[in-house]
């Protein structure tokens, strides 16, 4: 196994990002493994190359750039300002049957309040980058996690169901089961008698009762959940009752999730469904329309792109836009470039660092080896 080196094209990529005004980030190769486990979860943690320092602290070789780049920005003196970073270098992940060390490029736009403009910028640059390598057809796939989250809000679902749908939306295959279950009345939850008794009672009084019961048993905060947390969820379960989702609501979800068209058609279909079902999704749809207008202005051909409401990415910190650029000839199966809005990652990181700061973030990873392959240069 040899260390991957930059090709002349990779160097042109670095120059392109440099000219576009991105600051080249060079985070250390070694980082705290804890940070990855906390932020990206076990899906990525299981692929880490791990080691320990003399004090026993667990370190890993960086599995991607996003986490260390965002961390360095938030810990720096300009954490409150907008910043654009680029990177290009080796990252390390266990990959079955493939080299564990490979090159990754990418860009991150942090702290920009003009969200849709930042998103359009990232996609426009990403298309330019792909063109640098690939002369043949490219496919742009778009989605927006925010649309689905907005829908669950507008449908007035219980918090438990909202949480669950939001989570399963990000995991392929689980949503269909959920929808089936939503449509059917559920079997009674645990302690159904107690829950039935609590249903409809004054929330504060019910909460106090459960908290009292737990404290009689000598239980305060166990395993990171307070008696209040436990009481609250019990009450949520009570509110859930045994009824399923009204069939008309389930039908609306199905219809929204069936949308898969060019972005402007998809936008029109979403508006039509929202109007017909009397859903308040105006804000989410206006943002979508604004982004589409900006993309067209930036010269991205929307007619050749595809927008799918089901498209969620398997990294669970995306909160809005998601996109992937694919090889149109199908030579390379996996995405050449992929990214989106990941406010949830910066939110977790500021919480971890103890910063009272909201940092909007959008960016993408560039798989330079796949690009070279798709461009017939590998």
């Amino acid at each position, binding site marked *: 196994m040899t260390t991957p080196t930059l090709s002349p094209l990779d160097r042109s990529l670095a120059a392109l990002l440099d000219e576009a005004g991105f600051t080249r980030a060079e985070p250390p190769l070694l980082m705290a493994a804890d940070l990855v486990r906390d932020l990206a979860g076990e899906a990525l943690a299981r692929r880490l190359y791990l080691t320990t320092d003399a004090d026993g602290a667990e370190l890993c070789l960086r599995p991607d750039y996003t986490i260390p780049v965002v961390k360095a920005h938030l810990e720096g003196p300009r954490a409150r300002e907008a910043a654009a970073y680029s990177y290009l270098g080796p990252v390390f992940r266990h990959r079955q049957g493939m080299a564990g060390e490979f090159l990754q490029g990418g860009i991150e736009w942090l702290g920009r309040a003009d969200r849709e403009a930042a998103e359009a910028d990232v996609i426009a640059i990403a298309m330019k980058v792909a063109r640098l390598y690939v002369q043949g057809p490219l496919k742009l796939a778009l989605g927006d996690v925010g649309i689905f989250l907005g829908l669950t809000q507008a449908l007035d679902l219980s918090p438990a169901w909202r949480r*669950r749908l939001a989570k399963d939306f990000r995991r392929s295959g689980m949503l269909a089961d959920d929808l089936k279950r939503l449509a059917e009345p559920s079997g009674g939850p*645990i302690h159904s008698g107690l829950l039935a008794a609590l249903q409809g009672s004054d929330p504060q009084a019910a909460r106090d009762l459960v908290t009292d019961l737990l404290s009689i048993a000598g239980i305060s905060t166990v*395993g990171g*959940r307070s008696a209040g947390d436990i009481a609250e*969820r*019990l009450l949520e379960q009570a509110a859930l009752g045994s009824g399923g989702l009204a069939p008309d609501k389930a039908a609306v979800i199905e219809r929204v999730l069936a949308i898969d068209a060019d972005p402007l058609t998809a936008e029109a279909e979403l508006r039509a469904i929202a109007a017909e079902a009397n859903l308040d999704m105006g804000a989410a749809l206006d943002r979508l329309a604004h982004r589409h207008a900006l993309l067209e202005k930036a010269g991205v051909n929307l007619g050749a792109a595809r927008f799918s409401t089901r498209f969620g990415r398997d990294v669970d910190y995306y909160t809005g836009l998601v996109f992937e650029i694919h090889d149109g000839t199908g030579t390379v199966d996996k995405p050449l470039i992929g990214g989106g809005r990941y406010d949830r990652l910066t939110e*977790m990181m500021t919480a971890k660092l103890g910063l009272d700061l909201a940092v909007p973030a959008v960016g993408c990873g560039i798989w330079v080896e796949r690009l070279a392959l798709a461009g017939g240069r590998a």
Partner: protein
Amino acid sequence: MTLVFAIPSKGRILESAQGFLERSGLKPVQGRGARDYRGTIPGLAHVEVAFLSASDIAKELAAGSVHLGLTGLDLMHEATPEPEDRLVSLTPLGFSRADVVVAVPQAWIDVSTMADLDDVASQYRARHRSRMRVATKYLNLTRSFFDRHGIADYRIVESAGATEGSPAAGAAEMIVDITTTGATLSANALKVLDDGVIMKSEAHLVASRTAAWSERARDSARDMLDRIASQARARKVKEVRTRFTAADAGLVEEAKSRFGVEAPFGGPTSSGMLTLHCPPTQLFGLSRYLRDRGADSVSVTELDYVFSRDNPLYETLAAALG
């Protein structure tokens, strides 16, 4: 090229493993005193015995530096993310039984299933802006089980020992650990989720698929597995012997269908000598039947080995090695 056979040097599994090896005629002789970690087995010149912890045995099997070993099913799955590709279980051994389970604080009265846990994990993350922590030494088992239940909002905190104390110590919210009676979990105010049994584990005889299997190593394995299978066969039956003139082929057929006996050496001799192998539960019924049919006396003995032409454990190994 010798065959390396790894057996547990310590822990819960040790005593049962020793008993098993002794019964199977594979009792190792430790070289130069008790502190030597290598040994031999009398009568098997090309077998080297390595004394290791059960978890190291699983790791060495996966790495291919050990050919055969005694280890737990749980540890097999922990030693490598792809146990099927690297290891093959030749037979479960029936001892060191324990369950790998998901356990949460008893105070979580709103949580009794994995689906509840899934919901609580999402809620926890939304509220604390961090992931719920699971203390465990079972990284692979935890990840694949949580994956199967669609739980993503968690992270693992690796714990080498006293895992059950982690929630009380504030090091984790919940645990995945091994339990036999559940008493330790209860003592730590933890409860197992209704559908939270990840694996029912026990000791297995395991072979490495990645070790260098020379002809000589295969020959040694064939001998060892023959002893083990013969011993296992012997444990399933008692030997029943009798002699009476009325004993004939028809009587043997009836005994076979009524008591599930086998006649390993064929029907009665001309003088009516008969040897049967009988499942222990049928023993008294059979002896009554034989006396009713004319036997004056019936003797029953334990068997050490029943060798047979076929060698099923070796066939499993050979099939796995290809």
